[in-house]
């Protein structure tokens, strides 16, 4: 089943074509990486899908529904989870409370004026936190978390929405190399178990080639290659514009 379909997507900034006629789709349970050198249009593409940037041309369908013109909030409400390139959480709350407010919002209880918020969805929050390996930190203040933990917390916040589509903008940016693999492995495992489609951008090629089912390569706004990791790695166009003349990744395999 298709969770995301992008047709001829394009964005022009005052005459400059940042993204040119990009088309692709994403199946439930599939992990799709969007890569490309700096300035290739990854973030623009990504932000058009999550509603932050309005496309100039083209169509975006999530779960078969046209989402062009919807706010990020409305897109989240469709059942889309999202994490940011620079992780952000609610610094004045505990780790568990962060997840609880996401759960409250998911169940549309954010307008309740009575009842202690910290007593809602205690068990659900705890199981989400243990899923991402943060059970021990549940009571800690979110403001004092290490950056890697913050990234994992963000993942838990996204999962609180019971998403069928996950949009992750550089999920491992700023993390220690060891943590990166662990987080991506976890994302892959959960995505397969729960049939969640994952679209992520990433600069860490180890993570991309190890965990993506399929890779899209953008260069100067245009899609230049698409396919499974092995095929993309072997693609001469990709090697020329993206990997340059080096054979670093080829040699590593």
């Amino acid at each position, binding site marked *: 089943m298709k969770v995301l379909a992008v047709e001829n997507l394009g964005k022009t900034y005052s005459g400059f074509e940042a993204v040119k006629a990009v088309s692709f789709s994403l199946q439930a349970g599939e992990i799709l990486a969007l890569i490309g050198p700096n300035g290739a249009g990854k973030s623009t593409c990504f932000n058009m899908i999550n509603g932050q940037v309005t496309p100039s041309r083209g169509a975006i369908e999530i779960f078969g529904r046209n989402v062009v013109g919807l*706010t990020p909030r409305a897109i989240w409400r469709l059942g889309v989870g999202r994490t*940011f390139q620079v992780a952000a959480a609610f610094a004045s*709350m505990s780790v568990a409370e962060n997840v609880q407010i996401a759960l409250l919002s998911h169940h549309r209880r954010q307008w309740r*004026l009575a*009842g202690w918020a910290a007593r809602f969805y205690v068990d659900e929050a705890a199981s989400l936190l243990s899923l991402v390996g943060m059970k021990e930190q549940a009571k800690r203040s979110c403001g004092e978390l290490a950056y890697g933990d913050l990234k994992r917390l963000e993942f838990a*916040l996204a999962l609180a929405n019971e998403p069928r589509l996950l949009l992750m903008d550089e999920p491992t940016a700023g993390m220690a190399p060891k943590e990166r693999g662990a987080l991506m492995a976890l994302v892959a495992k959960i995505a397969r178990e729960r049939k969640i489609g994952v679209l992520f951008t990433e600069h860490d090629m180890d993570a991309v080639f190890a965990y993506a089912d399929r890779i899209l390569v953008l260069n100067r706004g245009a899609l230049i290659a698409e396919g499974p990791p092995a095929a993309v790695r072997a693609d001469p166009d990709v090697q020329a514009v993206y990997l340059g003349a080096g054979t670093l990744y080829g040699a590593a395999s």
Partner: protein
Amino acid sequence: MVYPPPLCGGGRYAIVTFFLVQFVTGLASASSLFLAACGLSIIFGVTRVVNFAHGAFYMLGAYLAFTLASRLAGDVGFWAGIILASLAVAAIGALIEMALLRRLYSAPELLQLLATFGVTLAVEDIALLIWGPEDLLGPRAPGFKGAVNLLGQAFPTYDLLLIALGPLVLALLWLLFRRTRWGVLVRAATLDREMVAALGVNQKWLFTSVFALGVFLAALGGALELPREAVSHTLDLQIITEVLVVVVIGGLGNVLGTFLAAIIVAELNAFGILIFPKISIVLVFLVMALVLIVRPWGLLGRAEAAARMAGGASLARWRPFDKRGRLLAALAVAAAALFPFFAGDYALSVATEVLIFMLYAASLHALVGAGGLVSFGHAAYFGLGAYGASLALKQLGLPMEAALVAGPVLGFAGALLFGWFSVRLSGVYFAMLTLAFAQIAWSIAFQWSEVTGGDNGLIGVWPSAWAESPAHFYWLALALAALAIALLRVIVFSPFGYALRALRDSELRAEAIGLDRHRLQWIGFAVAGAFAALAGALFAFLKGSVFPDTLGIPLSIDGLVMVLLGGVGTVSGGALGALLYKTLSIWVISETDYSKLVLGLLIVALVALFPQGLLGAVQAWRGRDARLQGATP
């Protein structure tokens, strides 16, 4: 002031010329408004400080020019007086910048606004001390005493001079910013302060000189009005409201936008007098609201980077009272309930007032603390509550019990209306818009005398018989205030309160988990307004009357001082801050005629000594203790 021509006779031609003259008069008023507003705008652009004392500097310019122009008689003397007065005020401004604001540039904007408000209060009383309470009429400008014939109507030549002066100053500023090294630095600092500092520019003196220039322009604007308008010690708050409206419409930090907005506001004032003689300011408000809907950062302004308005995130995690906390709170209320058994009537009425302000401060604290929405016009809802209750009693003939409901209902409705616009903005823009709305509410109460009694207020607002005695009314106030403050705490810890905090902590993240910022903050604003209105309704019954000053800027700022004293980072410390501040201020007012001077200096001292707020200071001090202990082997 120009009045409409008699309708009989004159014909269409006379009406056309009349409107033309009215338009040109508006242009003349726009000039001094532009001078003051662009001073504020330039200061904000570089230092990111909203200089609330700008109105006070404007007023000082007018007063000093009055003295100097009268002393230095003669043709040269008048103009020398105007320039010297502006320079002197600029020097005072530079001194204040060096002594006070330099300490606050990295502090939350709330503190900068409070500090400059403290300066305003002090200056107002100093002006009263030096120049007395009477309005002062300045000398006419030599060489510009006459009038010219403008399409058959007499038009003062001085107004023509002012009309020329506005564009002249705009051109001079343009040259200053485009053609001098200093101007290039100022523009660079407006775009990116950190980068300018990293390039080795001495920021200290850049900031001081910019501040002095801005203050000079404000003082000049005030001084130049001398031949047109009487100088009074209420000029400061009057002009600061207009200036804030102008910069909000024009876009903070943009000189050209300020120029356009000054013309728009001055013309609206000139024509508003004709169309809605009683409530002309409403017209300005409508236009401002319209501009903000279409362009939230003003006509020519740019979106502000993330504001650091909210006084810093709390250092200690918020929790509802545990058993011990609840017991202590209950004991405190019980102890307060015993007060009437050994206090006299005067002490009881003071204590009731303190209780009412504890509720008022708690409602503002919920908005500022949990919501991160620093309102500079919270008194609007206190006042609406007071007027709502009084009108329900006097006009509708409802009993006190119903009036105590009607007040909060009116406050809630008012906060719904004003809040809808206000929450669309954030940071300084939010603060200024809330302030402008409060001032508009004040003007309506002041000008709509058929309903509100105007300056004379509404009197005879007495409680029902059962609550008439000071002790009974004290208990009523205690019960309602305790209940309401407890309710506010419940809301802060409810899912709704958490949603507000989530939006305060990280708007981007909160929107991305499906929280609707505008709607949640809108309702939060209205709920806080309703609680403030309950305090206002009680206040009306305590005093037996209501006056426009229940909506005034000083009351709005008092609330912020109370919240600051109690600690923004606490859940409801504002109530304790109110206990301290209100008791202190009632005592100061009973001891001296110059209470504004004392309170103003107190606020300045507080902010200068504890730039992180009292609670922040305590926590920093504790932290230092902990570090010292850790260092001991």
